[in-house]
């Protein structure tokens, strides 16, 4: 990981020095253990603060839109796929970006790790797929593989799909037996069980919209839940309004979601919001053979019509 950090710093310092980019969007070290902070570097000096580790979980594609500068961006597999989405949706132009691709072997789930300890984690470091975690009273060595974020365990696009330069050699892609086992489990439930499952899932939602705001897809100038004249959705804690938010937000991501997991990472209430979007990822894969964010020259599934599109649902 340290070598990746060094490599990223060298590349970014060079880009800024040579004036190839105006700014770099990357991660810097967080102020608390197991955290990172999306940051901007405009000078070679600032580029020395850039880091890379298993906590660089959020999706930096979220920070690229509505800017005039030429941007260098540090992008792991999922970030790169969301950059492709942005290009397709005319939110950024390829020419305005310099993409430093980072082959990724998964990010760690800080919640799973915190759950192992009684006290606050005071130190976190990693080396060769081992994690070293300390609290005031305990010390543990963990296998990174066992503590990956859920979306990373089913990821089949760890290597950036679009880049100008790679910060390391590509990693081997995972062969996943049953990528959608979690979705199938819900699909096999009865309607009542499904209903109860999702009710329980969202019952703690505080509508802070961290999931939406962490999501690179959610760039609408005014989100439907923020429409006020007239208002579209109730703004209280009524479970039907909360559900409407999650349901429609998910549907807006149909055929676009890369399952980067930023929504879940951002949620302060630990809500498994991907339970909504995963179904759409599976459907777009199975119905339209479509994986979003792989090719900037292909139009997305919900954006095109083919005479042979499956139409079994229409009577």
């Amino acid at each position, binding site marked *: 990981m340290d070598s990746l950090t060094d490599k990223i710093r060298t590349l970014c310092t060079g880009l800024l020095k040579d004036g190839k980019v105006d700014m770099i969007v990357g991660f810097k070290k967080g102020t608390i253990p197991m955290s990172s902070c999306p940051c901007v570097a405009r000078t070679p000096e600032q580029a020395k603060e850039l880091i890379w580790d298993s906590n660089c979980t959020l999706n930096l594609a979220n920070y690229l839109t509505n800017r005039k500068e030429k941007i260098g961006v540090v992008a792991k597999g999922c970030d790169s796929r969301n950059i492709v989405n942005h290009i397709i949706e005319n939110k950024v132009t390829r020419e305005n970006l310099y993409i430093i691709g980072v082959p990724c072997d998964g990010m760690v789930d800080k919640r799973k790790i915190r759950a192992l300890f009684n006290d606050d984690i005071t130190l976190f470091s990693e080396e060769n797929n081992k994690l070293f975690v300390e609290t005031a009273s305990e010390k543990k060595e963990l296998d990174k593989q066992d503590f990956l974020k859920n979306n990373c365990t089913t990821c089949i696009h760890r290597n950036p799909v679009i880049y100008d330069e790679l910060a390391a050699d590509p990693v081997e892609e995972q062969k996943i037996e049953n990528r959608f086992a979690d979705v199938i489990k*819900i*699909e096999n439930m009865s*309607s*009542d*069980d*499904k*209903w*109860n*499952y*999702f009710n329980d899932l969202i019952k703690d939602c505080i509508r802070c919209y961290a999931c939406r705001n962490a999501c690179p897809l959610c760039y609408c100038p005014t989100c439907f839940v923020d429409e006020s004249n007239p208002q579209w959705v*109730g703004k209280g804690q*009524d479970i*039907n*309004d909360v*559900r*409407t938010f999650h*349901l429609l937000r*998910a*549907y807006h991501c*149909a055929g676009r979601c890369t399952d980067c997991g930023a929504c879940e990472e951002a949620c302060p209430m630990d809500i498994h919001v991907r339970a*909504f979007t995963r*179904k*759409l990822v599976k*459907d777009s894969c199975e119905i339209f053979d479509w994986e979003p964010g792989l090719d900037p020259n292909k139009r997305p599934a919900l954006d095109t019509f083919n005479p042979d599109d499956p139409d079994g*649902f*229409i*009577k």
Partner: protein
Amino acid sequence: MGNLLEHIGIEKDRLHFSWISSAEATKFVKVAKEVTESVKALGPNNRLVKKLG
């Protein structure tokens, strides 16, 4: 949309999609009947219905 609604527990038979030309009166009647029957069979829907306060 239908799939996602079904996924969160709205019974499949509550939502129907159909393509009917203005010239297809018989088909319209047939579909309307089917819709009514399948929704009736499920009974009243309480899901996604907001009750005030």
